[in-house]
Every structure is written in structure tokens, then in C-alpha cells.
């Protein structure tokens, strides 16, 4: 038995084994068509350029690449990241950036520097599950703000503020939301930015997918609308590769000062090697070419998934129509529990993420997240068909039980 059972911190209480994770252990086997993980299709990257970037980092800059770096991150990379953000209309100064181990560590640092136990923070419902796990370590209370096809329902947040709720910050993924697949409309963005500025509540804008737009015009980032009140989180995971673990925080001097110290406390600095590989990759050519490759692949897969859903799924299911990103968010009739259903789905060799994972209060049992980014198009059709067959059988079972 674990001799430290009674010694663990209160914040570690939620860190437990879970049945859903156990099912994913089965779902990761090759014969399972997985719509579960949001893994980028890194094979679409220009391989020669990646190899050249790695060569330069090691052969020409090895003395730097293999050494410790500063906690804020390598200046050369920060300068490149400024150009990455400029592509989305975000103006930034490299001094106002901290490089993190993916945007995931940025979320942890935000939690660390803002949240005391019991503090209220506002999140979207559903919310990115990694955001929940990062923040939950700091023992917040959650204000769940519902979403619709135009993203966060800002009116609901406004009502909560009128009721007297005062969240420490508002966390949002405005573009091609994970898991909901929707994008916050311009009108909502204006309203959110104004509301939060007036109330003195900072916005944490997490924008991993913004550049993966398949159609339509980009909507301005929240950061560009109010640089003083929006802390922006970026990542190279979706525009380059998640394996380099490069993310960042863009914020004002007070935030950045604390974030650097928090970053140093956590890991001294991000891997200097992958920082330099990333810097060289971004310098070797227009990174948007690689993004264009990604967008082509993901758009075709999104189309395949929407077509498959339209063809195979029962009429009483609904789903979002993402204009970018990785995810379709499906709502099935309320009698289904997608957490249980995952066991039967895995038996049929198809996997997804059950909706309950995305709500701190455990709701969302009639939802499922389907990632279209990784499976090939023909597998997407087959996987959706398997899920549809399962839903049809479950519906019959429900009727036979008198439902």
C-alpha cells in the first residue's frame, strides 16, 4: 500500500485513476479508429525544412542549444513568435512574452499566479479539459458560462456579474473551440471585451487553433481588441509541431514578471534545443506554407466527418459545423450516457471523448467530442458509421426498455 496516503496535499485529491482513461488504453490500439485524441497530422510538415532546422540548431548553434537558457525563453525565438502572432493581427513586443512548455504550461502558470483556493474563475461550458486539469490544481470554484453556435454566451456571464459574482478571470478558447468546435462571433467578442474591461476582470484568450481556418474571414482576436485586459496564450503545436513543446504567454509587464518567475520555478527554462529548432524552422521560410498544408488536410477531413455524420447519424442527434480546428461536438438524445457508451464503442473499434470530461460539474453526458484531425478520410467514414450503428442499436434497446 501507498505509505504516503495521508500526506498528499488537498490539491492532489482529484488526481485519481479513471475508468475513461482505462478505456483509452484500449482505444489507442491500431485497429481502433480514434476520434479521441487531438493529435496534429505532423506528416504534413515540410520534412526537409524540419531536418535543416534541426541541423542548424545542433551543428551550428550547439553551444547554445545544449545549454541552459533564460526563464523568459530565447530572444531569437520570441522575435519569431511575434511574427507568428502578427499573422493573426496580434501586435506584440518580444519582451512581453514568456515561452512555456506548450500552452498547457501557460495555463498552469496562469492558475499559479492568479488562483487561490476557493477563488471563482469563469470558464466556458464545455471547457478545454486540459484547462480544467491545470486550473483545478489551484482549487478554484468554477463559474460555467454556457455556449452556443456563436461561442460563449456572454449575456450569461453578464447576468452572473449582475448577480454579484466576481471571477478572477474569464478563460476562453474563442476560435474553433475545443471541444465545441464553434467560434465566438465578432459581436460577442466586442461585448465580452467591454464587459470584462468595465468589470476589471482579465480575459485569458487561449488560441491554439486560430490559424487553422478552413473558410470564411478571421475574426479579430480578443487581444487585438483590448491589449491591456487580455492575456494571450499561443502555441506552436498546431502551426508547427506539438513535439517541440513550445507555447507562450503574452501579457502586460506585471503578468510577465510573475510568469517568468513561475516558469523558472517550474522548469528553469523550456528546452533550449527545441526552442532553437523552432526558431530556425520559422526563419527558414514562411511558416504559413506548412499551415496551409495542415489546413488542406484538416479541411478534407472535416468535410469527410460532416458528410459521414449527415449520411449515417440518426436524425435526433445534432452537431456543430466547425469552420476550422480539430473538433466536431455532437449532442445525442438525453437517454444516452456517452461515458458508458464509450465501452461499447471501443468494442466496435471506434473511440471518442465523452462529454462529461469537459464540465467540472459532470454534466454533458449526452455529448461527445469527435476529433477529425488525425484519422484518414476513409477511416472517418467507417468510424462514424460504426458509431451510428451503435447509436441505432442503443436507441432500439432504449425503446425495448419502455423509453
Amino acid at each position, binding site marked *: 500500500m501507498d505509505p504516503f496516503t495521508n500526506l498528499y496535499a488537498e490539491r492532489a485529491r482529484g488526481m485519481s*485513476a479513471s475508468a475513461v482513461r482505462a478505456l483509452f488504453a484500449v482505444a489507442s490500439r491500431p485497429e481502433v479508429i480514434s476520434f479521441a485524441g487531438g493529435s496534429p497530422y505532423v506528416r504534413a510538415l515540410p520534412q526537409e525544412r524540419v531536418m535543416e532546422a534541426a541541423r542548424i540548431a545542433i551543428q551550428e548553434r550547439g553551444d547554445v542549444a545544449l545549454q541552459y537558457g533564460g526563464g523568459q525563453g530565447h530572444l531569437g525565438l520570441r522575435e519569431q513568435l511575434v511574427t507568428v502572432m502578427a499573422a493573426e493581427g496580434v501586435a506584440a513586443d518580444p519582451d512581453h512574452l514568456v515561452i512555456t512548455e506548450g500552452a498547457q504550461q501557460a495555463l498552469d502558470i496562469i492558475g499559479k499566479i492568479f488562483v487561490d483556493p476557493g477563488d471563482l474563475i469563469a470558464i466556458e461550458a464545455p471547457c478545454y479539459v486540459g484547462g480544467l486539469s491545470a486550473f483545478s490544481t489551484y482549487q478554484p470554484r468554477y463559474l460555467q458560462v454556457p455556449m452556443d453556435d456563436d461561442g460563449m454566451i456572454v449575456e450569461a456571464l453578464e447576468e452572473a456579474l449582475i448577480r454579484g459574482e466576481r471571477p478572477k478571470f474569464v478563460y476562453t478558447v474563442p476560435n474553433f473551440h475545443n471541444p465545441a468546435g464553434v467560434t465566438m462571433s465578432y459581436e460577442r467578442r466586442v461585448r465580452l471585451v467591454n464587459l470584462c474591461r468595465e468589470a476589471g476582470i482579465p480575459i485569458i484568450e487561449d488560441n491554439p487553433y486560430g490559424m487553422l481556418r478552413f473558410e470564411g474571414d478571421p475574426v479579430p482576436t480578443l487581444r487585438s481588441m483590448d491589449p491591456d485586459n487580455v492575456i494571450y496564450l499561443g502555441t506552436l503545436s498546431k502551426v508547427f509541431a506539438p513535439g517541440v513543446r513550445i507555447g507562450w504567454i503574452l501579457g502586460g509587464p506585471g503578468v510577465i514578471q510573475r510568469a517568468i518567475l513561475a516558469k523558472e520555478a517550474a522548469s528553469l527554462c523550456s528546452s533550449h534545443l527545441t526552442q532553437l529548432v523552432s526558431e530556425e524552422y520559422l526563419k527558414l521560410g514562411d511558416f504559413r506554407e506548412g499551415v496551409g498544408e495542415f489546413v488542406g488536410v484538416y479541411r478534407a477531413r472535416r468535410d469527410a466527418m460532416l458528410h459521414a455524420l449527415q449520411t449515417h447519424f440518426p436524425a435526433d442527434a445534432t452537431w456543430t459545423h466547425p469552420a476550422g480546428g480539430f473538433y466536431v461536438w455532437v449532442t445525442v438524445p438525453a437517454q444516452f450516457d456517452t461515458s458508458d457508451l464509450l465501452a461499447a464503442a471501443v468494442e466496435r473499434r471506434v473511440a471518442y471523448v465523452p462529454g462529461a470530461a469537459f464540465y467540472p460539474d459532470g454534466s454533458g453526458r449526452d455529448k461527445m467530442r469527435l476529433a477529425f484531425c488525425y484519422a484518414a478520410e476513409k477511416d472517418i467514414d467507417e468510424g462514424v458509421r460504426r458509431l451510428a450503428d451503435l447509436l441505432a442499436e442503443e436507441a432500439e434497446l432504449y425503446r425495448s426498455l*419502455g423509453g
Partner: protein
Amino acid sequence: MRVAVLAGGPSLEREVSLLSGHRVQAALAASGHQAVLLDPASGPLVEALESGEYEAVYVALHGKLGEDGTVQRLLELLRLPYTGTRPFACQVAFDKGLAKEALLAAGVDTPPWAIVSQAALRDLGAGAAIGRVADRLDGRLVVKPARGGSALGVKFVERPGDLPAAVMGAMAYADAVVVERRIEGTEVAVSLLGDPAEPLPPVEIVPKGGVFDYAARYTAGATEYFVPARLGEEALAACSDAAGAAFRALGLRDVARADLMVDGDGRPWVLELNVSPGMTETSLLPLASQAAGMPFERLCERVLDLTLARDA
């Protein structure tokens, strides 16, 4: 000796099985065996078994294929000595409905139950009789997938009206479910070892969250265990007797774990038996054997010896 440890596989308990298997493999290696972990889900099993010149197979698979007699039948065909119970008895023990029939026939107390199968619902319109299940069992109910382990898919039903939803949920894990009267009392596991099998000290299970679900089973510290269980001498003896009787009734061999509930009157009710008990850090058989003075390495060695003794 060259020993293949089978673990992993495609069952829903794959992850738990890998934890069990790695520990068993390490323990056997520490005892001087050439122990190799084989995962049936990661390559052709028959080839691996035949090319490895193994003298024995330790079955650390859990769930479907590993505990239902399937892998045991294959091992018989390959004439490889393997740990634990023979195929048919595995098949019976793994199916909670069949196992309960066998227990009842042998006079072992098991909570009253009913079976609801997908076939009966679909093809016989059995749903119209679902209300009678609740009437007959009278009380709080537990719904369990008829086949499967680690409490995956187990649902507690407080009100009869919630039964259909619980049946639906549990049926995602198996094509039939057991609806069982919930016995209130103390949760106890009795592991059995040897030929003839002897009960190890009963382990009392006190999940901090109240329910011994998947998280409570496999998160260190989420459940408190007491060995021996904090029951009177009489109740402890009754648990051991019931577990032994159940082991014999199902025709199990060498090693198994019986899960029981002891009611307010000190009467044990046998819920089920597991032919490939968990061997993880938080599992019950290793805990019981440790309490009996047999550390994990010796437990694994003993299970293997039982197999070899029979083969010789």
C-alpha cells in the same frame, strides 16, 4: 525457468492487466526466472509462445479473453502449463449469471438476482417485464455487466424508476446484465491459494468515497483496507468458509479471489469470483498474501509452483 507472463490484451481492463503483468514479470525475474511479458494485443500470440520455448505461462490477463476461458483453451491446445483455472470453470466464473446459478446450486449464499439480456429485450420484448425485476428483488439494487471486471459499468439504483437507465448504461459493457439486490454491510475480499485452495486472511474494503469503483480500486490511498477484516471471529470464519465453498462449487484451481458482502447479521453473501485476481500495487490478493506472511515475490513463485507441480 522460461516463463511467459501474459498481460494487456484487448479487454477493457487492459491497463490494469499491464500493471499486474509488469509486477508479476519483475517478481518472477527477481526469483531467478527468465520471465518475458507477452501482450496478446501487440503481436501474434501463438508465434510468440511457440518461438519462446516457454516452460510455463503466467496468466495475468484480466477481463474478456483472459478470464473467460479463451486464452486457457488456447494454452491447452498448445500444451503449455499455465497458472490458474481450466477453461470451462473460467467461463462459468466469468459469467456472473452462470456463476450465481452454480453458487446457488451448491448452497452458497449469493444475493437474489435477475438477468436482463439484450437478446431478451430485443427479441422477446422483455422490457415490458422490467418492473417485475425491481418488485421481485425488493430493495436497493446493483446493476452489473454480466461479464467484465474492475467495477466497470456497475450502477447503483436507489429508485425502481432508475432501473432502465442503469440497465442501459451497464449494457454498454456486456450483452447481458445482472440486476442484484444490494446487500448493506461490510465489503470483504477473500483470496484463495493452493491445491487444495486455502483462504488467505479476509480483507475489508472501505472506499473513502463510499463506492468501490474503478477510481477507488486503482488510486493509491482512495480506499482503506483492513487485514484481517474488522469482523468477529465467527463472521471471519464464515467468510472464509463461504469463499472456499464458492471456489469448489465453481471448480476453480490454484488461485482466485472471492468478493463478498457481510450483512448486518454477520452473514456473508458471495458476489463473484475472479480467476485472475489483480496483482497491482493496490490489489487485494497481494495484500492478503502479504498479511499472511507471503511477500509478493513468493506469492508469484507459489502460483507458478502450483502449476508446475501439477504438470510434473
